[in-house]
């Protein structure tokens, strides 16, 4: 929260582009095989760059919430503010800092189950109001929607 205020008032990041929550449940559990590359460049013709085992770097908590900020000025800049939280751990709301966060935070709560603290209207936004679970979580069953009506009834 203080970081958010500092970014807005001192550094001029007055535009919040997006809030992206990510669930890292099971991160690296599958193991990853394949070539090791970096975004800056890689030599795919080197023999050892293919077929090596590499696990992704561990993450501090299960959930991350990324705030993509932008400075609309003559010297534009982008910053990503990342907050880490475990399941059920509250994340402070930034609606009072950037009003546009309203729906983004509701979406984060709805789809990822992030507990946003201090939000004026934290209800589901995309799913039904009586929906159970948070669909974008990694442990949410796929194709597991219960059958509401059947022919026998």
């Amino acid at each position, binding site marked *: 929260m203080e970081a958010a205020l500092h970014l807005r008032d001192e550094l001029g990041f007055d535009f919040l*582009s997006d809030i992206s929550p990510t669930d890292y449940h099971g991160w690296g559990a599958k193991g990853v095989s394949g070539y090791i590359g*970096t*975004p800056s460049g890689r030599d795919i013709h080197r023999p050892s760059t293919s077929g090596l085992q590499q696990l992704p770097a561990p993450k501090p908590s299960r959930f991350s919430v*990324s705030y993509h900020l932008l400075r609309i000025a003559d010297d534009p800049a982008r910053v990503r503010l990342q907050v880490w939280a475990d399941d059920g751990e509250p994340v402070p709301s930034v609606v009072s*800092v*950037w*009003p546009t966060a309203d*729906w983004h935070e509701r979406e984060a709560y709805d789809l990822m189950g992030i507990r946003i*603290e201090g939000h*004026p209207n934290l209800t589901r936004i995309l799913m039904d109001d009586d929906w159970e679970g948070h669909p974008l979580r990694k442990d949410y069953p796929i194709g597991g929607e219960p059958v509401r009506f059947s022919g026998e009834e």
Partner: protein
Amino acid sequence: MAVAPERPRIYEGTRIPSPIPSVLLPPPHLRDTDDILTVNFGPNHPSTHGVLRLVVDLDGEEVVGVRAVIGYLHTGFEKSMEQKSWWKAITYAPRMDYVSFQYNELVFVLAIEKLLGIEVPPRATWMRMLLAELNRIHSHLVWLGTAGLELGAISMFWYCFRERDRILDLFEMVAGTRMHTRYFQAGGLAEDVPPGFWDECAKFVEIMPKAIDDYEGLVDRSEIWLERTKGLGLLSREDAIALGQSGPVLRASGVQWDVRRAESYLAYDQVDFRVPVYSNGDVYDRYRVRMEEMRESVKIVDQALRRMPDGPWIADDRKVVLPPREELHTSMESLIHHFKIVTEGYRVPEGEVYVAVESPRGELGCYAVSDGGPRPWRVKFRAPSFVALEATATCVADSLVADMIAILGSLDTVMGECDR
């Protein structure tokens, strides 16, 4: 942790409702009377551009409270994309915003390329820019046609869709499909451009400015149009920034901001174009911004046609790009690569990126996380329509119920993208 102050600084002097920025509540002296009528607009109202539901409190004809309810078109694209390999997930992206499909595709492909660190040949870059600008014209035409229709200008719809069809014909020539082209691959384009395309596109560039003159001739001096657009749906510069508005809505509020200009991607730094900015922040200015953007897009398409570089249309990285078809019969390595890419998909190095492009609706962003495997770990789109609808409460405040439709139209939202 610090608790947010009751009414923080950013709300001062703005029209943003408090405490919930996206919900307009009726004033207290009206709340207790019986005069307020609550009307449910949607989700299947033809004037709401899709399945948007608005719960509106009316005092006579005046809107005193409004709440937008979305989610009726939620299809779980982001979850589905996590189940597919990177290159199959490209197919999902254009289906979100079905009016400016190329942009969703573009931003996702750019995100993959940023993670991969792959070099895109200039011909592919310029061709992407050309198609994206055609798509911008297409999107604005759909907007102008439907927004005109809502305000009673029925002929506008037919004129706009006449030119729109020509653009779709061009897409069909290039990609084989009229919408949801899936023509952008990680590393370049799916195929080279067919030779007949250039002539057809040049013809289009010739007729389009005249067509825009026609549209302006139809509505620009029409009393009804001016009456129903000027001074409505006001959004000040501070409101627009605080509410995260982008694209034409932001530029109509007097903010000189265009991702193409400020953080140039593709080849936008090599072409000559103007960013139209208006300062009143009403429906009419949003219309003006879009009209001028169409003219600028035609100019960009024209420049891209003249300066289209020759050379390969896709990168030569066999770990990512499918090998040429003819090589499969002669080369074992090509066959293996083809098999690996088609069945397992290419692997994308671990990392997270946020890429933003200027779509017809505003800043379209893609946040992608990779764990180093063949599937995306997380894909999140920053949908400009989603953000635009947050401004409904601010824009619609104190307007008449008939003007609400014009204001909603001017925000130009596509529900498929909003609900994803």
